[in-house]
């Protein structure tokens, strides 16, 4: 049992920090790749920008530094890292009584650094170092939450936010790289390793598939691997796990609520077949996954947060 408003805030903290981390990683990969003035460097920059939903990726890819700076620091842009962290922190402030001091301190620290007047200078002095540190701090934040918060309902709402956001972000990245709209398949070695880096997947991939960079394997790994924490399958398994734990106490949740949707989504990934996906086109499959994530999000909101009072008033 916890306040509906509080559950909502914890869920959004999860979503915002996951988004911030992903954007930092995309920016970092983009900046590293474009140090070389190669054709694939521009391709990588366009992938990164298209994956965050920027329709202007071709133009912006010409100035990757400025694109990364805006993506990270621009407070006017509600989708930037700084804005996401400010919102995560604002949500945390509203549920300050529900999270441990250790967890709060981490998030507050990241936010303070990001909104510091010197942040722009620090970013200019060493963009990659800045991004690395931010990602490491976000790991520390998640670690502190994991190690100090009770793994009860509140923590599960937080995790639910993290994994739903992650599934959607990785899904969007895969759509950009393997979707039907792509005219020219990605074959360049540097582009393929960069793609893995954007999913923080390079080293885990190498351990499974060795240094054999095949687009098919990369799609399979980021989509269907059972153990890799950023694969879509792994995310959907966690979504189902956290939701079923949360729903135990709510009768309405099991019947037609988010539980069923999450189970179906998990099964879709668990029993997927690479051959079928490739035959039908990755786009159709990815679109179904992303839509179902959105449906889970709506159902969570309707079941736990914005339910109508008539159904819940005591008789």
């Amino acid at each position, binding site marked *: *049992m*916890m*306040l*509906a*408003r*509080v*559950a909502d805030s914890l869920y959004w903290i999860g979503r915002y920090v996951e988004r911030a981390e992903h954007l930092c990683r995309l920016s970092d990969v983009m900046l590293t790749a474009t140090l070389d003035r190669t054709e694939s460097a521009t391709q990588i920059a366009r992938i990164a920008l298209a994956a965050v939903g920027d329709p202007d990726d071709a133009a912006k890819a010409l100035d990757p530094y400025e694109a990364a700076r805006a993506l990270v620091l621009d407070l006017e842009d509600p989708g930037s890292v700084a804005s996401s962290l400010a919102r995560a922190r*604002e949500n945390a*402030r*509203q*549920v*300050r*009584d*529900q999270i441990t*001091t250790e967890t*709060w*301190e981490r998030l*507050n*620290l990241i936010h*303070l650094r990001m909104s510091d007047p010197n942040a722009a200078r620090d970013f200019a002095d060493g963009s990659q170092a800045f991004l690395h540190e931010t990602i490491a701090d976000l790991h520390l934040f998640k670690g502190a939450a994991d190690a100090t918060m009770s793994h009860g*309902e509140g923590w599960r*709402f937080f995790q639910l936010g993290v994994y739903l956001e992650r599934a959607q972000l990785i899904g969007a990245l895969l759509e950009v790289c393997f979707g039907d709209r792509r005219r020219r398949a990605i074959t360049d070695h540097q582009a393929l390793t960069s793609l893995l880096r954007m999913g923080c997947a390079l080293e885990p991939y190498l351990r499974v598939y060795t240094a054999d960079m095949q687009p098919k394997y990369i799609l399979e790994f980021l989509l269907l691997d059972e153990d890799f924490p950023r694969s879509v399958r792994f995310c959907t398994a966690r979504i189902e796990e956290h939701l079923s734990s*949360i729903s135990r*106490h*709510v009768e309405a949740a099991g019947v037609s609520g988010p539980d069923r949707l999450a189970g179906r989504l998990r099964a879709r990934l668990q029993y997927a077949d690479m051959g079928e996906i490739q035959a039908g086109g990755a786009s159709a499959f990815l679109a179904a996954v992303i839509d179902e994530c959105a449906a889970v999000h709506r159902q969570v909101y309707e079941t*736990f*947060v914005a*339910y109508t*009072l008539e159904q*819940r*008033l*005591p008789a």
Partner: protein
Amino acid sequence: MGAAKAKGADRGSAIDAPAVPYDEMRDADGAVRPQYASLAARIETLSADELAERQRTLERFFLLQGITFTVYGAESTTERIIPTDLLPRIISAEEWKIIEAGLIQRLKALNMFLADIYSSQQILMDGVVPRDLVLNAPSYQREMQNLFVPHSAYANVCGSDLIRQPNGEFAVLEDNLRVPSGVSYMLANREASKRVFPGTFRGAGVRPIDRYPDLLLTTLKSMAADWRPNPQVVVLTPGVYNSAYFEHAYLARLMGVPLVEGRDLVVHDNMVYMRTTTGLRRIDVIYRRVDDDFIDPLTFRRDSGLGSAGLFNAYRAGNVVICNAPGTGVADDKAVYAYVPAIIRYYLGEDAILPNIETFLCREPAQLSHVLANLDKFVVKAVGASGGYGMLVGPHSTKAQQDEFAAALTADPNNYIAQPTIQLSTGPCLIGDEIDSRHVDLRPFILSGEKIVVTPGALTRVALRKGSLVVNSSQGGGSKDTWVLTDRKDLQP
């Protein structure tokens, strides 16, 4: 009128001779007082740089913890920490005994006063306090008449403002019985000063204050325990934009109870519920940090979005307890204040242990003319205002300000009281990189439910501007930790 003049009058008015303020650390000859001995010795060994370094550590602690208030500007929004001084204020065991006894006596009498004026009004019949003064006070809530309050504990949380007079005696400047704040700073200052002066702290024998959240929860539960075995307690906050939001979240977290906002509450059939993930859950006790006027738009201000419609009726029906009770403000009204010594005598048959500051009620024509003739020497306060607003500090005012107040006083004398300018005591503070004296007051916190308890500690507020007597945080004030020492006799040998 006799009752209105406080005990201070007997010692001769302080008006014409602003005495030298009492110094907390040193006596009149400049010798260090015993309770400050170890701190003074420690400071001696620290260089200016080391002190400044400790001050930075302290400020970083507050920033990291998010103990900040938000300044909303036109260009950007920034967060600032409340100015905090690292040198603790120290109170000896003997001094504390008097303070503690005085506070308990005072709150006991004020609760009895509230129970009386909201029922049979005996004290008004007997003419001890003027009837119109109480019934016409804006803070008097007619809705509270004949409403049962468990243990007659109206003011469950009280934060009285004490000052130390030039003769060394503590006196009460104000009773805060509505929604007093500052207790989180008392607790946070303590955590910070343990980090900054660990050695001195250990040696000094400081009484712990960390049981406060536990005692607060016990107090709140005791308000409903008679009919609900394990009452559900919540803290009601106006929300994250309130300047005391940090404190609301802090107390909820340390008590382990939900922090709710008005929008989380639902009133149905005179029961109060909160919206949880598993549906509606009943609430028994609300520790509200929302002012009376905003609790329930149906009963009080219609435009309030901070409370919950129907809350007051649920309270009247006895299905929920609101702490502090609505309408307690009438007992800390600045005009009623003048009668507190008489109130104590009336209900308890005792003299007030902690004296009042001599207070002139402008509603009495003779006192008004005395105040008007001496505006440059008085502190004039509007009865309804708080936070250092609506106030004239005579000796620091311009002729124009005095004229403005003279006009206001003549036009609406009922709304004003006047007190002689009291030299608050001074204590050492780190200003820049050197130690200098600043004026301080003392705000201890008293809890009353089934029992009345005083936490052995307080918030010491500091007027950081040199010579200033205004300690409110909205007017350039800061705070510091307050050490109440253990009586050596109470310690095991």
